[in-house]
């Protein structure tokens, strides 16, 4: 079980460690800077941290024995002279990394391979621990990529990356908005997935088009890769065929709206969510912060409250801010109002680590 958590916030990176039975902040890095996401590569123990310096752009840092070092950041290729593409408001889309929105380690058979999803929609792969990056042109140049739209941000972006633990050439990504895409050949070609999802923000004839789907978060059960869970803008969806088709899960208390989802590493029917009221009211229902958990593939849900604030809590938990450790026992999440909670019993009870951090963007076990 993991004893360390990396919490990415608007104003720095905080390391939370288990000491005895207490979880405490034990280190701060990049204090004052906007840390948007981290990755801990279980294959070699390296940590990666994405920063957004605003004026000075997006940067990527990697841990060393002596602290952090800045490494290459994924860069878009030169835009052809005279070529323009526009966002949904008609503004030109700059071919430049606007945000690092997904980081994932490659397979066990490809040490040093890191995948990176970005805004405005570029997917990148590094084969040398982030020292250099190659854009996956087959996806960027795919004619349907231009149908991706802003969802979680003004620009479209790749926020979820799942690498098949049995075959690292097989990768799934999810786009807000642009649905789910998969490759069977390490990124040489791509296929749209995600039949069965439902989008309410488009006209009826587009409701079930897989490319219109606003997936908030996509996860895959490592031990049973057929099983994928999606927290979607319009609900919770589950797949039993590697994302080809999804079934909507309805009638979930208190809500099916939210951003993150995590799935147990060995039990595909067990997944956790952090519900908000709904799209147009993104706060916990009745000011009660809860985590919902299913153990039966979505037929029923436990509403987990022990140790979580049940009065006047307005915490929103972003898509990368809920984490499950590799053992499937410990959970952690952080909120927009600076709270961090940890559970050592699969969510049955929670301990507040702090409620005074800057807005939390991402929580990851390290």
């Amino acid at each position, binding site marked *: 079980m993991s004893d360390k958590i990396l919490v990415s916030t608007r104003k720095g990176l905080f390391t939370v460690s288990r000491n005895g039975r207490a979880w405490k902040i034990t280190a701060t890095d990049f204090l004052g800077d906007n840390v948007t996401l981290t990755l801990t590569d279980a294959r070699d123990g390296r940590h990666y941290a994405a920063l957004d*310096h*605003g*004026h*000075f*752009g997006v*940067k990527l840092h990697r841990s060393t024995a002596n602290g952090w070092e*800045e490494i290459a*950041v994924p*860069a*878009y290729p*030169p*835009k052809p002279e005279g070529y323009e593409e526009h966002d949904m408001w008609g503004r030109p889309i*700059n*071919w*430049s*990394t606007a945000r690092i929105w997904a980081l994932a380690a490659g397979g066990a058979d490809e040490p040093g391979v890191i995948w990176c999803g970005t805004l405005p929609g570029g997917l990148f792969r590094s084969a040398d621990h982030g020292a250099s990056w190659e854009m996956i042109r087959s996806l960027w140049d795919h004619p349907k990529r231009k149908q991706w739209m802003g969802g979680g941000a003004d620009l479209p972006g790749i926020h979820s990356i799942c690498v098949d633990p049995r075959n690292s050439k097989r990768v799934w990504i999810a786009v807000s908005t642009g649905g789910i895409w998969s490759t069977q050949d390490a990124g040489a070609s791509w296929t749209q997935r995600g039949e069965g999802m439902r989008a309410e923000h488009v006209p009826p004839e587009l409701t079930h088009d897989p490319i219109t789907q606003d997936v908030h978060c996509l996860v895959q059960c490592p031990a049973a890769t057929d099983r994928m869970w999606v927290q979607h803008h319009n609900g919770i969806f589950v797949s039993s065929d590697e994302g080809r088709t999804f079934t909507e899960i309805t009638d979930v208390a208190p809500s099916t709206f939210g951003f993150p989802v995590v799935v147990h590493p060995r039990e595909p029917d067990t997944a956790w969510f952090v519900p908000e009221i709904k799209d147009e009211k993104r706060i916990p229902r009745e000011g009660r912060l809860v985590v919902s958990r299913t153990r039966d593939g979505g037929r029923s849900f436990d509403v987990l409250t022990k140790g979580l604030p049940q009065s006047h809590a307005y915490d929103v938990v972003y898509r990368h801010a809920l984490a499950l450790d590799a053992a499937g026992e410990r959970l952690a999440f952080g909120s927009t109002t600076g709270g961090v909670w940890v559970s050592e019993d699969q969510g049955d009870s929670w301990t507040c680590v702090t409620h005074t951090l800057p807005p939390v963007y991402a929580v990851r076990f390290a």
Partner: protein
Amino acid sequence: MAKVVFTTNVQRHVGCPDAVAEGHTVREVLENVFARNPQARGYVLDDQSALRKHMTIFVDGRMIRDRARLADAVADGSTIYVFQALSGG
């Protein structure tokens, strides 16, 4: 030769000491500076080598007009200030 001065705000991320470099345009001068300090390039220019959205450059007290190509002229003895704009928070 032109003198290039970078905002102090960038210095805690990447060292950008004052520099002197050849060039007839802002582009030429900056590229000569970045050739000697490549890490600084991405803090000022975006992936298309245009000036980052919330950065601004002054040449002898005049804000440049060509943010994409940086074609504004630079004279011998000019001073180029690379600042962050007051947009972007």
